[in-house]
């Protein structure tokens, strides 16, 4: 979805501010959130829930405002409800995400034969100019732009399909190299490039 999380290329966030002395966790609740995510991750994934999909649906103003690990926590509540681990009532007040429905049973394992890759190393491809309102890992800043296949990573589960409950739809996953000038015009440095992993359904020949 074209959400606030899709930040590549945005302006206005100021300088990057490293903090050399920072602890791993700034508060203990952050560590507990990490641990709870780990402990329940397999069960939530088996049910077809996706933490990233939920994080992306946090309302934009809340997304920008809350601490990093609170995004995980809000998604943990939502995906735990989706997976039937807890009820909406047990999640308590204060959820920033709308209470999601319990997910239907996951579709049966994908038995389709593996797709053969449509693209080879060095092929020119274009990221399709699509704007799904569901979870996708194709960032806005590449859509409609042309690049070159730089690597092929075999077939991988297609997040865009799983996130809609349509099964794994395993398909070829590529690294596509875009030149900086292709993406950003004249302000891109002529020597620079940006590499992005994209699935075959994200691409068309250029």
């Amino acid at each position, binding site marked *: 979805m074209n959400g606030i999380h899709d*930040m*590549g290329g945005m302006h206005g966030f100021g*300088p990057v*501010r*490293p903090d050399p002395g920072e602890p791993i966790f700034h508060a203990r*609740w952050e560590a*507990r959130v990490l641990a709870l995510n780990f402990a329940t991750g397999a069960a939530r994934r088996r049910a077809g829930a996706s933490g990233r999909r939920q994080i992306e649906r946090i309302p934009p103003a809340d997304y920008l405002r809350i601490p990093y690990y609170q995004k995980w926590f809000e998604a943990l509540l939502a995906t735990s409800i989706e997976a039937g681990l807890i009820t909406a009532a047990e999640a308590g007040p204060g959820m920033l995400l709308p209470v999601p429905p319990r997910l239907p049973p996951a579709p049966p394992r994908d038995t389709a034969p593996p797709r053969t890759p449509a693209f080879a190393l060095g092929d020119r491809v274009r990221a399709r100019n699509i704007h799904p309102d569901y979870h996708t890992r194709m960032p806005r800043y590449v859509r409609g732009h042309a690049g070159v296949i730089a690597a092929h990573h075999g077939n991988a589960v297609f997040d865009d399909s799983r996130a809609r409950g349509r099964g794994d739809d395993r398909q070829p996953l590529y690294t596509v190299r875009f030149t*900086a000038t292709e*993406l950003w015009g004249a302000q891109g440095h002529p020597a620079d490039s940006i590499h992005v992993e994209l699935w075959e359904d994200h691409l068309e020949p250029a």
Partner: protein
Amino acid sequence: MLRSASEQRGDAAVTAHGDHDDHDHDDHDHAHDHDHSDVPSDIALRVKALESLMIEKGLVDPAALDATIDHYERQVGPRNGARVVARAWTDPAYRARLLSDATAAIAELGYSGAEGGHMVVVENTPGVHNLVVCTLCSCYPWPVLGLPPAWYKSYAYRARAVIEPRAVIAEFGLTLPDDVAVRVWDSTAEIRYLVLPERPAGSEGLDEAALAELVTRDAMVGVARVAPPGVAETGGAAP
């Protein structure tokens, strides 16, 4: 203001300020103006409630929770990646394996696990400088670098690394000349990237362990180079 470990443990504790018997004020310089409230923050309460509920329902094992935290706070970190880099600098056959199948080569040193199942190592050369980001969230190669620093997860880094990488790297103190190409890697799938920095001049006499000491987290993400021995770090902000 740096905060001691005991101060951070106090965040979720319900206690008035004077009751901190494990709170050591000797090792940091501050007035008593840090944010110890009388009650835990809202989010801390919500997290505690969920943890209690999940334990009660048998969904999670408290010992496993503590073990996970210990793993990421104390056992995994950039020292792992530094050993991978130092091995690659001293063993050309290992370097070749690292560049062709990073997951297997990294596992040779005993490093694997969550967020490291599909590793790719990208090498810096005199003509190429690599930079890793996750614009959509915060993907990061945990088994070799531990959990990411706050700056890597920040909106400023996520937004700017792909559109103005040289300006971001310059903010860390490293200016790259025009004849060096910058390659940015946006981790949008399950591949996790580790930068193999160039071995610094003047390090020829060092053994693998001493070389590993030179390698910083920032150099393995790509906002710094590895400084020669005895010189302040070139770029970057933290080990």
